[in-house]
């Protein structure tokens, strides 16, 4: 009987990269067309980061790359080799919620919760940027995150609460 070759799983197009996600390095063998979002969800199994539109329009996939908020659906994982990534699973420390997580609870800043991981990562990026002064600034600088439940008023209040305590 002829021997049948096993399917080649690692082909020429596959790259080996390292993503440090929430302080843990992951070595991934990955094809170039895998987005950072799919790498995080499907390869590393961190499903807190959500796929909403997959087109950079809704912000549900927002993560922090080297401290800056980006849409993980519009970048390729291979382009982020060596990057330091924070997802919603990594924002709490030592079992204590991130102040923004607590503020979202305090202000009931969600209904279905699907956009919340992206909202919180985006808000962390906003605070890192340090450009928001007023409520209107927060509204403008959170405009990359859609909430179909319409929890915007409470989201802005939650972000403002944390900003004011900085």
């Amino acid at each position, binding site marked *: 009987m002829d021997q049948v070759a096993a399917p080649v799983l690692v082909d020429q*197009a596959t790259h080996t990269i390292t993503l440090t996600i929430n302080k843990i390095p992951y070595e991934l063998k990955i094809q170039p067309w895998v987005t950072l979002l799919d790498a995080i969800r499907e390869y590393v199994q961190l499903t807190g980061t959500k796929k909403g539109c997959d087109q950079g329009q809704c912000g549900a996939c*927002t993560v922090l790359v080297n401290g800056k908020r980006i849409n993980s659906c519009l970048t390729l994982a291979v382009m982020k080799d060596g990057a330091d990534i924070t997802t919603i699973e990594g924002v709490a420390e030592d079992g204590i919620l991130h102040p923004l997580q607590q503020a979202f609870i305090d202000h009931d800043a969600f209904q279905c919760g699907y956009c919340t991981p992206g909202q919180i990562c985006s808000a962390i990026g906003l605070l890192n940027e340090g450009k928001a002064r007023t409520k209107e600034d927060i509204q403008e600088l959170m405009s990359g995150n859609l909430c179909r439940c319409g929890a915007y008023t409470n989201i802005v209040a939650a972000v403002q609460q944390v900003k004011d305590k900085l």
Partner: protein
Amino acid sequence: MNNFTYSQATGIDNAVNEITGHEKSMFIAGGTNLIDLMKENVLHPDHLIDINGLHLTSIEFLDDGRLFLGALVTNADTAWHPEVEKKYPLLAEAILAGASPQLRNMATNGGNLMQRTRCYYFYDTSTPCNKRTPGSGCSAINGYNRIHAILGTSQHCIAVHPSDMCVALRAINAVVQVKGKAGERLIPIEHFHRLPAYTPQIDNNLAHDELITGIILPREHFNTHYKYLKVRDRASYAFALVSVAVVLRLKEGVIDEIRIALGGVAHKPWRDEGVENWLKDKPATDENFAEAADMILQEAKTFGANDFKPALAKRAIVRACREALNREI
């Protein structure tokens, strides 16, 4: 998205060599528009050359006082750069009017110049589009064309260039620095983008083997009277229906120099230098701005769903000029 291979350029010459002769290869920087278009099956490169490792990430003054913006500096870092905020606030204002904070953290200056139209039919591969598939026809001319062009259109394409940043660059008279197989060249912004004419598939005058290395801003600052006014369907995170970039300088109570660039109305940022010259030495009044706006829009041609645009553009021009004039520093 189709399968493709991927490599990282090690230098500018290496990037140019890699792409030369490979018509289906493309450069990738921020990727915010390219990856979107690949997911939509509008673009299908067989190889991507990642240029993010190139040293084009600085903003610095040249010896002659002009400001060089590296092609790979992100839109966010450009808008919030102290020298841009101070000396080219129109550019900062325009960049911050575009996209979302997440996208501005990814999108680069070079990529902003290269972004494609958001014409719905260009994105919809089930419809004819001369820009996507030359010769197939234009679905927008007799279709839904609310966002489409009113100036410089052709019977083959009425798409608009979607950038805010480029409208400001047009008012500032920026220069695009590129490097190709034949060496380096400088392309004034007015000659970078094209009108659709018979070849709407060609957005700009960059050759396939050329790489944008930076944008050079002239020494003139215009940081007193300036305004970027963007009119859109929602207050934030939407493309312009009409946008206006204005810079002006007064001398003894009259206009010494004014520049008015429009976005959302044409296949490239639109300026009418003849009208700007007409305004020179005239008082900076609403009446004069309105007459200038009428002249700029004189040749406007509308297509049904965008019939509102000439009136909107005229009012936006007057308001932007007035706000530039009255800006409190």
